[in-house]
């Protein structure tokens, strides 16, 4: 095994240490860029063996490492991955490498600090996905906020201070309640091991309180309606790279948290409160779909579209209980969970690509307003082809990854209740409406103004980034089997955990 079984540690610490080293090259921007590129590409390359060496047949944690850490509270440096964490880690390393490439020329100040922040953020995020100890998880979870706060606060737009503080407060307050829940369980069970927490007996009242505490942390991150309003503000002010990492990876933390903590630790409370999540998810799909229609700022529009798409994630995760209640069978639970995971990964590619597309245009015209564009296809045909592809993926076109997760979740939710599927399927219309209307106003039409007339088509670097994302979007749309196979054992195990009551006998 590579690195003597310490591959995950390497993946966490390589970008973090690399990031700190990059910070020192403040005066030598070129060196900083090349060093960042090497670190990010190397991290991605090293993450590939996680997939190739992954054992599909087990739900047990793999690539496990354990070391004593804070012995007084029995917290350990315990990391490992299953089929749920592994694809998210690959998404992280892939996206970060793309962000470094795409930031090559468009960061005006402090390039070294900018790229260093992203590398540190990458390591921390990988840490979140592979932490098997709740304290370790919590540390990474909160540490993630710092580089993101800096990225928005330093390189952001005019209202960056408002946006970054809103982002910080929202996510921080939610996380504190999660910490309270973790400490409560530690005091009760004497361990911070996530697997121990998952096996701990808890009364329904305990579970409900713990569920709500977790919910406040994860729902904000997803973000679910009605705690979503920080996201459009954060996206609008964040620089392109910040938006990409926010949309592609950070939102997935919430979904990951539901899968790793809420559902297996508090299955009974999840069953009791699933109506709440389902209601919020469906509101996200329909309500936010309409809100997206009214946006005039491209980034806000895509941000709202993200919220609507993430509604499918939470819907797919929590639909299982009602499937059992309605049909008396368990078939469909796993379809919902798989669908939620696929939707998260696809959203990582598609929304990341959409934000990069906006970034490409912003670099040329310095406006995010839809009105500032029109007829971009005339001057940027290659770019237009990519943008149309990603827009179609965003509206859930079969053959692109955007379809797969939505399709699975709609199929699963019909098993629970035809009306859920009805409301969820409205995205077929709304998603196409807001995305393709955007395309019509920005990409198609005669050349809108002088700025558009002077836009130059994609350079090689931009082409590479969008091309790689396009390949991913199409590959997982045409053949999602390899991805779903990775999830299989873990979601099957999770589906069993959901059905097992944890209320003490």
């Amino acid at each position, binding site marked *: 095994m590579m690195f003597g079984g310490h591959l995950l540690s390497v993946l966490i610490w390589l970008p973090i240490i690399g990031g700190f080293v990059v910070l020192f090259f403040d005066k030598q921007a070129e060196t900083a860029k090349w060093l960042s590129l090497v670190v990010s590409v190397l991290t991605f390359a090293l993450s590939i063996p996680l997939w190739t060496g992954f054992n599909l047949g087990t739900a047990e944690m793999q690539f496990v490492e354990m070391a004593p850490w804070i012995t007084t509270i029995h917290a350990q440096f315990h990391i490992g991955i299953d089929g749920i964490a592994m694809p998210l880690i690959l998404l992280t390393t892939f996206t970060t490498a793309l962000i470094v490439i795409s930031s090559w020329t468009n960061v005006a100040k402090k390039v070294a600090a900018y790229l260093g922040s992203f590398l540190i953020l990458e390591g921390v995020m990988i840490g979140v996905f592979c932490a098997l100890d709740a304290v370790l998880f919590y540390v990474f979870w909160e540490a993630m906020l710092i580089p993101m706060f800096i990225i928005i606060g330093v390189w952001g737009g005019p209202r960056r201070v408002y946006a970054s503080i*809103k982002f910080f407060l929202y996510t921080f307050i939610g996380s504190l309640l999660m910490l309270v829940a973790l400490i409560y369980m530690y005091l009760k069970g004497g361990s911070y091991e996530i697997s121990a927490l998952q096996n701990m007996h808890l009364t329904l009242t305990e579970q409900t309180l713990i569920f709500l505490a977790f919910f406040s942390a994860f729902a904000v991150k997803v973000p679910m309606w*009605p705690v979503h*309003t920080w996201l459009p503000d954060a996206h609008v002010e964040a620089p392109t790279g910040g938006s990409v990492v926010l949309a592609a990876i950070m939102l997935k933390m919430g979904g990951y948290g539901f899968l790793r903590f809420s559902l297996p630790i508090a299955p009974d409370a999840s069953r009791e409160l699933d109506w709440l999540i389902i209601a919020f998810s469906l509101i996200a799909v329909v*309500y936010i779909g*309409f*809100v*997206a*229609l*009214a*946006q005039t700022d491209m980034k806000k529009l895509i941000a709202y579209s993200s919220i609507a798409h993430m509604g499918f994630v939470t819907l797919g995760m929590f639909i299982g209980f009602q499937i059992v209640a309605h*049909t008396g069978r368990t*078939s*469909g*639970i*796993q*379809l919902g969970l*798989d*669908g939620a995971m696929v939707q998260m990964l696809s959203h990582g590619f598609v929304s990341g690509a959409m934000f990069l597309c906006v970034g490409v245009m912003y670099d040329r015209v310095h406006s995010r307003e839809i009105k500032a564009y029109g*007829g971009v*296809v*005339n001057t940027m045909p290659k770019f237009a082809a990519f943008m*149309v592809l990603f827009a*179609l993926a965003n*509206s859930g*076109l*079969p*053959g692109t990854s955007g*379809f*797969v997760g939505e*399709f*699975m979740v*709609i*199929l699963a*939710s*019909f*098993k629970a209740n*035809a009306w859920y*599927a*009805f409301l969820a*399927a*409205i995205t*077929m*219309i709304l998603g*196409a*409406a807001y995305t*393709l*209307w955007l395309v*019509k106003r920005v*990409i*198609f*039409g*005669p050349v809108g103004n002088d700025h558009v007339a002077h836009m130059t088509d994609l350079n090689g670097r931009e082409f590479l980034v969008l091309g790689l994302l396009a390949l991913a979007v199409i590959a997982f749309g045409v*053949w*999602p*089997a390899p991805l*779903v*196979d990775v*999830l*299989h054992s873990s979601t099957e195990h999770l589906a069993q955990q959901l059905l097992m009551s944890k209320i003490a006998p």
Partner: protein
Amino acid sequence: MQSIYLSIVLAPLIAALVAGLAGRLIGRVGAHSVTILGVAVSCVLSCFVLYQQLAHGLAPFNGTVYTWMLSDGLHMEVGFLIDHLSAMMMVVVTFVSLMVHIYTIGYMADDDGYQRFFSYISLFTFAMLMLVMSNNFMQLFFGWEGVGTVSYLLIGFWYTKESAIFANLKAFLVNRVGDFGFILGIAAILRYTGSLDYATVFSHADLLTQAQIHVSSGIVWPAVTFTCICLFIGAMGKSAQVPLHIWLPDSMEGPTPISALIHAATMVTAGIFMVARMSPLFELSETALSMVLIVGATTAFFMGLLGIVANDIKRVIAYSTLSQLGYMTVALGASAYGAGIFHLMTHAFFKALLFLAAGSVIIAMHHEQDMRKMGGLKKYMPITYWTCLIGCLALIGFPGSAGFFSKDLLIDAVGQAHRAGATYAYYCVLLGVFVTALYTFRMFFMTFHGKERMDHHTQEHLHESPWVVTVPLICLAIPSAVIGWMTVKPMLFGDFFHGSIQVADAHNVLERLGEEFHGSGAFMASAFLGLPIYLAAAGVIAAYFFFLKYPGWADAAQKNFNVLYKILIDKYGFDWFNEHVIMPAARALGGGLWRFGDQVVIDDGLVNGSAKTVGWLGSVMRYAQSGYLYHYAFAMILGLASLLGWLVWRS
């Protein structure tokens, strides 16, 4: 054989990718060569497959190509079902596509997007083949949305034209409304039968009949009716049935070759094909079939009327397409699926022919499409004229032509049906014959006969189109003339569709018609005893007098029936309703939810509100921390007093 099926699908895909990605590299000739080669390979192989099936009894193929996904024990696969129905569709699709490819060389000769266009139409052919060859619902949906997407790209092909990019968005969204129903239907099928594979679903159809859907407290629907109606809503979108028809006339903003290929011959018939494919399910729901019948009849008659007042030559044919799609739908609703598919086939040939002929006229007229500026083109364009005449005769059901057999049998079948709405449908399709003949020959006379109304410059340059245009016209004119005569007996009264289409014995109107059918010739002779043929003749004669001999009559009729004329010109107000009610309402709802829901209630109320509350608390607390010792002393005394008071009161 599997490699042959795979080649049929992949040849156009590869060609599309080459022409699309390396278009600049291979140039114009390279682009059209590679795509024509790809489609020609598909066409030849499709014909080979059909021939093998018919002549050598090749058994239907039902197999998997690869596993798309395996989740929760549900196998979703990409695979083919090649029976007579799909083989016939493959031949029609690839043949028309091949003709359109060749034609495009002439039609798009001066266009900057030449390679892009060829890439798109090849990609379309791929998606359409995936649709018709599918053996499961997932792939059906893939093809379904795939053709819709290429249609979106092609309607907006001239992307600087505002009307074109409005039309393509409209087409996509209206289709998505249909797909919304379609995906719910697919979800219902999975819910009740546990599979998305056609064969498994059909063999478990009884599970669907036993199940019920609780719509709300007290309201319960049979699951099979719900499912079939959902699937049919999908078909209504794609096959442009009222009220989801509104996108099709606007789709004429795209270049004419795709109007022929996509918006007449192939894609718009996908809904008809799908319902026929799902006949084992639709047969189980009388309610759903009645809905199909009524929607189809309404489309057939009322959309035909619009063709009488339109002046754009392509729009006339577009309304005609709507009306003919309505005819096919009526046949499905009457359980005469075979008749619907038969009309689909004949219509594919003659309607593609009519569109391409119109395109030929449009080239000659320097992209003028208004028939009021045409006239007398017969002498300039003889090949276009004669082939177009064949297409028109087929469309109105002139005895012996392809359309005659399909339409007359279809009308007879509807007459035999005993289902709610059947009488209404019968009168709609019968009167529709007159309407069809009227608008068809109005168009024909206004274009090719009468006074030459074009400007002098255009008139000087009028000439017949090049061979790449006329050869496809001739190739399509031949089947338009003879295919009905040749195939009516085996297709409708033989066992051609045996195994592909299932009809309950009680509904089998075609079998009843078959007992009276004694060959094509006899059928033609007996047609003179029926009404349709006289209605068609009346339509042609009316068109002759109103639009050729005495054009003043048409003006007078317009004045005397002004209200009716206005209704038709406004297209029954569907577009007005969408543009003035639905679209503003959606935008206002979005804006309202955003400004009020997100900004006022959530942000100002909850988020900034809680921030303000904290701030207010702080400002109140500030008074408490004044720094004066006597304030603190007073507060302590007050606190002590109240504490003591409370203790006393408690005891």
